[in-house]
């Protein structure tokens, strides 16, 4: 026991133990399909900070934080609340995230992209400027004759189009407002079932339904004391109570449509020296902000009506239209507006004068014509009497 060989043996064993104490790696690696591993940021360079992953997460596990290294917002995945459903991997348009081999398996397949917000374009407000189509990172906005249209099944709801739209024609339907409206709906419905709903006139106009943003939830139809036909988007019988306006989650049922500009400081301005007077801008404008000067026969833009959609600047063949501040444009445009008004007043006066003149002229002409005719008749009768004589006249009368 006490021999040096024994001690050597023990020391050797201990050293061997320390060397062997490494964990057996193969037992720690989870099997291929085991999904209790949260997704990882594999290619952060490709990220476009669109927040599609954040939108798709059902467990609220993803948040965006600014990264100093890459100088953009990157998703940060909370490991504890991740349920590893792989929705974010499917939603990512550039393939940044990865969970085992799921990205490779689903690449190129088409399916409904998971998300919680839905974006829709209101066709009644759309001014057809096409800015949303330019901005969209995945090119899913289609042009139609009367409006632009978002393909909901492919949309990742990055909200880029919502930010750029000049008139606020794009509507976000999110879960929070949807739930609030549903709660309000159930409250009212309970009142209605007990017969306690107060039906007095609160609105002046009969509301109409926009078919572009109606999602057919049926809230208005169930609460209405009158009658609403959702298949044809029509209000059949209205009692002016206004409950349908309170309950609609998208604002599709409304009394009036107002197109208002988001940007109220800037406007477009036509340079009169460059303009060739082709009047393409005048035909293209949907909000009737362009009028034609009667003095020099060249179009000008009214700054109060302009919504800065930029459609006229795009279509102009000589690039005569530029974006300026409102105050700069008002100086020159005011002159044209006053000129136009004066010319209009003069023209109106002339019109009225000519109208009155014409009326008097017609009246006089009519009276004169009748008198002349009567006198002619008398004259002809007298002449015939003279020629025919009294005898002949008597025979004719008999």
């Amino acid at each position: 026991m006490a021999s040096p060989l024994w001690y050597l043996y023990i020391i050797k064993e201990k050293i061997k133990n320390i060397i062997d104490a490494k964990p057996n790696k193969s037992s720690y690696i989870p099997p291929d399909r085991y999904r209790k591993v949260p997704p990882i940021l594999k290619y952060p360079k490709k990220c476009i900070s669109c927040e599609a992953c954040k939108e798709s997460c059902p467990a609220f596990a993803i948040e965006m934080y600014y990264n100093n290294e890459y100088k953009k917002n990157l998703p940060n995945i909370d490991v504890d609340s991740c349920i590893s459903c792989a929705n974010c991997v499917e939603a990512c348009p550039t393939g940044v995230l990865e969970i085992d081999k799921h990205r490779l398996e689903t690449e190129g397949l088409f399916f409904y992209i998971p998300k919680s917000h839905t974006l829709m374009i209101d066709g009644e407000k759309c001014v057809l400027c096409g800015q949303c189509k330019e901005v969209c990172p995945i090119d899913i906005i289609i042009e139609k004759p009367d409006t632009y249209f978002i393909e909901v099944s492919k949309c990742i709801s990055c909200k880029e189009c919502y930010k750029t739209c000049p008139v606020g024609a794009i509507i976000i339907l999110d879960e929070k407002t949807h739930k609030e409206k549903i709660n309000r709906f159930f409250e009212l419905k309970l009142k209605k079932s007990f017969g306690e709903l107060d039906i007095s006139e609160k609105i002046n106009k009969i509301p109409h339904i926009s078919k572009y943003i109606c999602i057919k939830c049926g809230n208005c139809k169930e609460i209405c004391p009158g009658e609403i036909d959702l298949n044809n988007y029509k209000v059949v019988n209205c009692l002016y109570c206004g409950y349908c306006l309170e309950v609609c989650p998208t604002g599709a049922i409304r009394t009036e449509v107002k197109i208002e500009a988001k940007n109220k400081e800037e406007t477009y301005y036509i340079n009169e020296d460059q303009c060739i007077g082709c009047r393409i801008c005048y035909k293209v404008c949907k909000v009737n902000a362009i009028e034609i000067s009667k003095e020099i026969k060249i179009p000008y833009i009214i700054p109060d009506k302009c919504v800065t959609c930029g459609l006229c600047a795009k279509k102009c063949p000589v690039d005569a239209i530029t974006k300026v501040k409102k105050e700069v444009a008002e100086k020159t445009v005011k002159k044209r507006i006053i000129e136009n008004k004066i010319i209009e007043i003069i023209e109106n006066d002339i019109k009225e004068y000519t109208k009155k003149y014409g009326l008097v002229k017609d009246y006089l002409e009519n009276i004169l014509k009748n008198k002349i005719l009567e006198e002619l008749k008398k004259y002809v009768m007298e002449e015939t009497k003279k020629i025919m004589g009294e005898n002949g006249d008597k025979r004719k009368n008999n």
Partner: protein
Amino acid sequence: MTTVPIGPIHPIFKEPLRIKLVLDGERPIDAEIEMGYVHRGIEKIMEGKHVHKGLYLAERVCGICSYVQSFTFIECVEKISKIEIPEKAKYLRILTCELERIHSHLLIIAMYCLSIEHETLGMWILNSRERIMDLLEMITGNRINTGYNILGGVRKDIDKEMITKIYNVLDKFEDEIKTIREAFETAPLVKLRSRDIGILKYFDIMKTRAVGPVARASGLENSDVRLRYKYYKELKTYKPVSRKEGDNFARNIVRFDEIEICIKMIREVLELYQEVGGPIREKCEIKGGEGENRFEAHRGELTYKMELTNHGFIKRIMIRTPTTMNLAAYRYMLKTCPTVADAVATYVSIDPCISCTEKTLYIVEDGKIKYIW
């Protein structure tokens, strides 16, 4: 007359519930059931959410049969918006569903064995259940909350290696289940504690609308939604199982029989799966409307009723789980229980799941509200 309260916390209960037994001597005569300890209001949370989020929430309605809940939910959405899923996804859904049925049945038989103090048999069953859980993990990626279903199909495909592995595991499992069943049928302890105890008669089913294995053990063979479900009509091996005794023993034997049929069905589905090709999921668009879907969960008939808007927001939803009806049938079983210990074992034999059942419910008898659950 004395009353013995059992619960809300008791070693035999997996979930909190209170049963007040009314005793005459040692014989239980009647029982009052009190609920509300795990009410989560999951239907109210789902209102206003998108279908993609509601799917994961529906999976968390139940902790054991989580796949069936998401299966019924997503089939209901597809029914409303008229989406047809590809053939491959259809077979994969049946495969996962039947595997989960085996594990659920084995778990409740094991719990029953523990409740009649036959712990050895219970441990055997739990041991062989682990083989099925491994298969589930291999196919879907997770053990319980699988997240396997997705709108228009399933998340992942299986390959040839997995199919051979499933066949091998099933062969082993079949031998094990045979010995376990023999032990269960011939053991004298099981016979003493479960034959002629907790009998539910055929006419009592009409009063309480019992469903699932509880109804099938009492002679009601047609109480199986799979008989009328579109996917199961083409399967040749599927046959409903029934028994006529209606006692605790028959309820467990029905479950053993169903496991055997499940194994046969899985083999047939795998053969059918290998014949078809194509993708496992499809592009689809969600349309608004109302609809209802029923499916045979492991405990009985499961119903999802819902109303959707365009683009897939849930307006309102109603879930009806099988334990609601089976708990009502429990009061009729008590009449043939000689002791309090048997009443507890009978409670376990109906396969109760409380957290599924905890919805706001009114039970009306003779025009008056008798129970509010």
